[in-house]
């Protein structure tokens, strides 16, 4: 084989999935364009957050509100879910039992939901300490940035549920495969955004 096998989560369906493979190429590129618009939104919210760090108006600051332990747990949940989604992508590509694909997807879904639940508990604790979005410019910027990421993870979980439903109804047809490869991009990408959040917001605030 002279051609290098493509490893893109979108393009890597390979020869046995010929139809889905070619349908994927432009869908995946288009999806990358969409993800890049998301990157710009998150990037500018990061910049807004940094400019607002000084605007605490005497309210609670990062060291009063953030907890290292919960930031660490959330980071681990998201990192492991990214890995399990990778395992699901491999199961799809190498046409293993549908059972394994679904098991990996379900583990990913549970980890994603655990992340959201943990984040909501975290926000709840912040509210108890007086860290509400309307308290200061700093808190407004925080609640524009971090829950937007949580909202993305929530939508990704809903999308994953919808795909599981499609697998149940239609089996692994072209549309389902193309959907799974695009969701993989979103899922891994959200993990990258979280790297920025835990580094800049949580660790930067607690350092």
């Amino acid at each position, binding site marked *: 084989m002279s051609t290098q096998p493509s490893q893109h989560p979108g393009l890597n369906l390979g020869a046995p999935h010929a139809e889905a493979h070619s349908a994927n190429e432009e869908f995946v590129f288009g999806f990358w364009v969409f993800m890049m618009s998301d990157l710009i939104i998150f990037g500018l919210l990061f910049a807004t957050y940094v400019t607002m760090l000084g605007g605490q108006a005497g309210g609670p600051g990062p060291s009063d509100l953030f907890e290292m332990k919960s930031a660490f747990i959330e980071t681990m949940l998201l990192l492991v879910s990214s890995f399990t989604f990778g395992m699901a992508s491999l199961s799809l590509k*190498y046409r293993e039992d549908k059972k394994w694909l679904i098991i990996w997807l379900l583990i990913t879904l549970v980890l994603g939901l655990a992340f959201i639940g943990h984040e909501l508990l975290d926000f709840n604790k912040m509210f108890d300490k007086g860290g509400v979005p309307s308290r200061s410019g700093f808190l407004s910027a925080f609640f524009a940035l971090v829950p937007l990421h949580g909202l993305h993870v929530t939508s990704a979980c809903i999308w994953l549920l919808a795909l599981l439903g499609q697998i149940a109804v239609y089996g692994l047809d072209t549309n389902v495969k193309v959907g799974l490869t695009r969701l993989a991009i979103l899922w891994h990408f959200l993990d990258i955004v979280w790297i920025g959040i835990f*580094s800049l917001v949580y660790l930067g605030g607690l350092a």
Partner: protein
Amino acid sequence: MSGKTLSNERAQERASELKNYIVGFILALVLTLIPFGLVAFTDISRMQLYGVIGLCALIQIIVHFRFFLHITLARNKREDLQLILFSVLILAIMCGGTLWIIFNLYTRMIPSLAL
């Protein structure tokens, strides 16, 4: 583990891609543990800490792109890579400009707020 048996070549390809994901996961794990560990258990100066956190985040982002999203220098990924690099350039101009202008305003108008 697999329902159908794979041909030898496909099985090898699968093993190498699996290794790819595991290497990426371990690298990401280490690059997460370093900054968290430093912030939690040491008291080195704040500026050094910011440097290490930023560097680890940057490397980890590249690790995620390389091992999880498979964005490499290979020719068939060139378009995706160019799209990402162009978006990062636009983002750098917009973020850099925002920070430059706002902090300039801070220092000129409310010196006490300058960070």
